[in-house]
């Protein structure tokens, strides 16, 4: 062991080992690269897209791919490539923020349920059961109906839909971790509950939560596209892959590419997060590694 490694904390050493393991999985690395590409596409849409997403050129409506319009134009003569690029914004926003919202609410609840047990655990479990009793899209559709259709509300709906399962995962993980020796040691040392949960339990489930993030980001990406497709998410003229697909339906026989490109973008975005998630799960879960 070199001295540089010796001074690393156990956690940092573990992180390093994980990173090395991840790099050995080509599919997971490909997923990571493509996922990052979509994030960059969302951040730098104005620099990447050759046209503004709303700019129409009626003389060039429904034209095929050309040097001016890489993916061709839609029925209003808008550049499809630019619209696909700009749509990454709505998609990444929904994917990342819905997941963050779900985690911000679900993780503390799961920690409390798993750590304190007692009466609070069954109460929380029953509440998650109730939320789980509503199929995901029914929650999202219902909430969009209550809150009104917009990207923000779709994101909130998707976040709420993700909460019950995240509560369960966090609770289960907390139940297991509270039996660990280092937690018992901390209790014996008189550490407060807050310190135990925040310092000892939460950091040790970052791996699990990371995997959960790679599950919920792609689900929320598809969810946003779906809600926008149904008219319950992003409202035109703001571009979104779901909005584009919905608008493309009447032109499916004349201009199939209107259907193909936005869908391909959703597919690649979700696939990339799923590949990354599968890779992370493999390296974090020793059972599937064997």
């Amino acid at each position, binding site marked *: 062991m070199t001295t540089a490694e010796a001074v690393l904390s156990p956690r940092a050493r573990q992180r390093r080992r994980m990173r090395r393991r991840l790099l050995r999985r080509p599919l997971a690395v490909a997923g990571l690269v493509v996922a990052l590409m979509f994030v960059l596409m969302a951040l730098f849409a104005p620099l990447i897209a050759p046209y503004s997403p709303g700019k129409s050129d009626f003389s060039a409506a429904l034209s095929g791919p050309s040097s001016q319009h890489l993916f061709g134009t839609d029925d209003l003569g808008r550049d499809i490539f630019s619209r696909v690029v700009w749509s990454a914004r709505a998609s990444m926003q929904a994917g990342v923020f819905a997941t963050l919202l779900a985690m911000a609410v679900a993780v503390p609840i799961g920690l409390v349920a798993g750590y304190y047990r007692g009466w609070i655990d069954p109460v929380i479990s*029953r*509440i998650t*059961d*109730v939320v*789980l*009793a*509503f*199929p*995901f*899209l*029914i929650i999202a*559709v*219902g909430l*969009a*109906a*209550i809150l*009104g259709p917009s990207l923000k509300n779709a994101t909130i709906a998707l976040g709420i839909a993700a909460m019950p399962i995240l509560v369960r995962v966090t609770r289960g993980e907390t139940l297991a971790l509270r039996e660990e020796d280092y937690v018992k040691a901390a209790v014996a040392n008189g550490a407060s509950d807050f310190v135990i949960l925040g310092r000892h339990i939460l950091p040790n489930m970052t791996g699990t939560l990371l995997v959960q993030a790679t599950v919920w980001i*792609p689900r929320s990406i*598809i969810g946003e*596209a*779906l809600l926008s*497709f*149904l*008219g*319950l998410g992003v409202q035109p003229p703001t571009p979104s892959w779901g909005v584009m*697909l919905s608008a*493309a*339906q009447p032109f*499916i*026989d004349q201009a*199939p590419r209107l*259907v*193909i490109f936005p*869908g391909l973008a*959703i*597919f690649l975005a*979700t*696939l990339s997060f*799923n*590949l990354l998630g*599968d890779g992370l799960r493999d390296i974090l879960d020793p059972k599937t590694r064997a």
Partner: protein
Amino acid sequence: MRSFLLRRTGAALIVIFLASVVVFLGLQALPGSPALTLAGEDRSPQAIAEIVKKFGLDDPLPVQYFNWLGHALQGDFGVSHRTGLSVGETIMDRIPITLELAVLSIIVALVLGIPAGVISAYKRGSLPDHASGLLALVGLSIPHFWLGLLLILLFAVRLRVLPASGYVPFTEDPIENLRRMAMPAFVLGTGVSAVVMRQMRSSMLDSLTADYVRTARAKGLSERSVIVGHAMRNSMLTVVTVVGLEFGALISGAVITEQIFVIPGFGRLTIEAVNQRDYALIQGVVFVAAVGYVVVNLLVDVTYSYLNPRIRVSGGSV
């Protein structure tokens, strides 16, 4: 077994009760007043006051709730103010269509998922294993509604072998019914088949190394009967559970699939209700979806414990 049944049923009833409260309160949160909507054209204060009185809209919330629940339990969800038809009957008309779609999708999922899972586990690390693993990943990542549009593009627009959309009742013309259900069932089934395949593969991997499989081999049974009669039989247990748990995903999937293929089922009814702000209908649809989901989960639990006695004895305390 009996106490297990009672406990599970009790828990399911509590969930349904709480779900009914959520549905009822959720509707209170909807923008717009039901009295105004019900009044339609005539928005004079007298007309509105009459409606408020007739429907008990000025009663305290708990009273309104129990009134609603009492009717709902008898299948009476009121009358749709859009169509003037009974909400309960409208829902009952639509459910068989969605059930047919769900059953066909599950058949697609099992036919694709089980063989793929068994072969991947049996030939672990081989080309077919990697190929079906990748296909499962694609099946999980592909947005259903996009897959639906692609199928329409291929089979209806290009090849012209299947109708793009629409519905014909099975009783009227079974062949035409199945032709129209083929694409939607495939779209809904692929997502579930990916889950089935993964589950089948991982539980087959467990069974294949289990002692009873080694014993079966040792006593000279043919490879075929070891796989089919022993290993697969046990793995089917978890597949039953997984398919049951996917029921919620099927309902969600039906909403969008029926929208794309213009099938007048329960899913399409949900979207119609929301788009038309048909309050009674929204309430009915959401409540029925939740009850259906809870009941299916209960049935899955019971079936599973029936098939696997270990659960009955030790577990169930969750």
